[in-house]
């Protein structure tokens, strides 16, 4: 059972997050002070740390730097109300694995925790996940919810590019370019054919499209 540490000084928000995540089946320890977090991490081992920046006695960023300084590689998700780009950069530079801005949607937070747990499991393999879909580049295998899905070489390439650039549009020209060096010849409807086949296999909503922009994966359901 994964163990989580929440560092949050707000007396209403902290306990609510703790209970919600406990309902999801995690073991959760809640701390309100930055220095307590360092002590606790030194004693026990956690799978993911959820860290507020505005902690008393020792700010979240200081905690994070101290953790990384002693070579603790526990995934850290920074949760903060500070949302300007310099803050994000500072958080990621200090060694955060993810950055979430308050008010956090608990379902989104749960998804991000799952993502960190998955990354932790396969820290050394060569794979990429978006939502329920995972691509294993070493084995050239795609899977959904752990079940293998058979793809043609073209479909794999198209999906790989979309997933590498998830949450952004990939133009049809870029997708054609991805296939070009393989076949030397890309028929005009090759991309449309591959996309509709991928949609049959992973669900219509997995790949989104906008006319004039191209295709995109990643979104609410991911």
């Amino acid at each position: 059972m994964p163990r989580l540490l929440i560092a949050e000084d707000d007396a209403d928000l902290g306990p609510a997050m703790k209970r919600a995540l406990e309902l999801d089946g995690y073991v959760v320890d809640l701390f309100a002070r930055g220095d307590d977090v360092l002590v606790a991490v030194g004693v026990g081992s956690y799978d993911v740390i959820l860290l507020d920046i505005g902690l008393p006695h020792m700010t979240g960023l200081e905690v994070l730097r101290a953790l990384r300084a002693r070579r603790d590689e526990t995934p850290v998700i920074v949760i903060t109300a500070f949302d300007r780009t310099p803050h994000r950069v500072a958080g990621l530079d200090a060694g955060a694995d993810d950055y979430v801005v308050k008010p956090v949607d608990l379902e989104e937070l749960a998804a991000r925790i799952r993502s960190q747990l998955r990354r932790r499991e396969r820290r050394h393999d060569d794979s990429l996940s978006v939502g329920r879909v995972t691509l294993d580049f070493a084995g050239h295998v795609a899977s959904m919810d752990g079940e293998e899905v058979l793809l043609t070489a073209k479909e794999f390439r198209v999906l790989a590019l979309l997933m590498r650039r998830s949450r952004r549009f990939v133009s049809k020209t870029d997708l054609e370019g991805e296939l070009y060096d393989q076949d030397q010849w890309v028929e005009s409807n090759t991309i449309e054919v591959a996309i509709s086949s991928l949609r049959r296999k992973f669900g219509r909503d997995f790949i989104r499209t906008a006319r004039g922009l191209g295709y995109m994966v990643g979104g609410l359901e991911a």
Partner: protein
Amino acid sequence: MKRSSLSTRLYRRVLMLLAITGLAMGAILYSVASVEIGRSSDAQLVNASRLLYMMMQDELTAGVMVARSNDLAGKADPLLSAEEKKAFRASYDWCMFAVFWKGQPVAQSSWGAPVELVPRQPGLHDFTALGERWRSYGLPGRDPRLLVVVAERDAMREFSIGPVVRRLVLPLFLLLTAAMVILWWTLRKSLSEVERLAATLNARTLADLMPLVPEDWSRDLGPLIVALNKLFARLEQAYELEQAFTDDVAHELRTPLAAIRAQAQLLRKTAPQPIVEDVNRLLAVVKRANDLVDGMLTLARLNATAVSVRSVDIHALVADVVAEALINLPPDEIEFTVLPEHVVRWTCDPASLQIALAAVIHNAVRHAREGGQVDIAIIRTSDHLVVTIGDRGPGVPAEDRDRLLRRFERGAAPSSGSGLGLSIAVKAMTLARGSIELLDRQDGPGLLVVLTLPAAR
């Protein structure tokens, strides 16, 4: 006051000073010259009188005057022969003369002023005769009863100053013109430093508050540079205070919202079905409050946003904003179309344009829910870039459009919007030196928002 007037005024004043100096110099030179000419003319008069006296020496030694004084009534020898008079005239043709013995004229020239008017005293004298001013010199002989007087018209002396002045006119004019040109050039060159400073400051972005390096500027501008740097430091401080304040506001407002949201979501997990509906409504209100906080923070931060203009792919910018909107929407809810399909480059501030686009697209998504369609077009002309965002919502009546672009104004249709979206877009477009306009769609129902950016300077 106009910016050029300082140099023009300075130029005018220095020119005036130059003219006054020139005139004063001229006047001094004129008076010195006329005194000198007067003195040399006087010296000539003296010489002329001496010449005349010398001519009379033979007759005087012969005792003409003594004989005359003994026999006043008798006919005596003339004091000056006709040849001697001619010789005098050959040397001093502009001078008249008269010789007096005991105050009575005994010889005189046949020309010039009448002898009665000639002063009968030794030394230099002025007198008037024949309607003209005359200058005379009386030379007493060895015998004090004899007085030789030579006179000339004053006009003869002034006559010699005219050509001098006339000869000076051209060189003086050239000198003055050259002075004007050199003066103007020097002035422009000195003031170009100020223009360079202005250009440097104009080229800066709003948030570029780096102090100026005093060594880069001439020493005359030193105090100005120091004052500017002090102003920059104060602005920087104010800017940082404002940033810190909005950060604090963000933290203080979002943390309780986060607590409410977390509690509500927790409740939704555990509560029975009828309550879940109420909790969902509560969560919608939380989202609205959060949108409002986001909007207020965006507006507040736009006041202190760094504007940096560069060449941007507008198509990619639109793609990013649409992707961001689409990610947070349920699948198939909105269909986006973007025209054209390729890169469109334009020089502008991407950050403010992105904020404006995000606000307008967010607005379009909210109002397009029934129609479910948002059409975006990027149009580039030589001097403008136009991005149009059209929805299939109910549109906005013409009389409400200006009102809608102001803060906290909502459309007639019931909506969950914060009322800040379009005012954020207005502010961001103003920052990007562009404009925003609400129109009716021409190809059916719906609102068309038109964002226009001019070509960068």
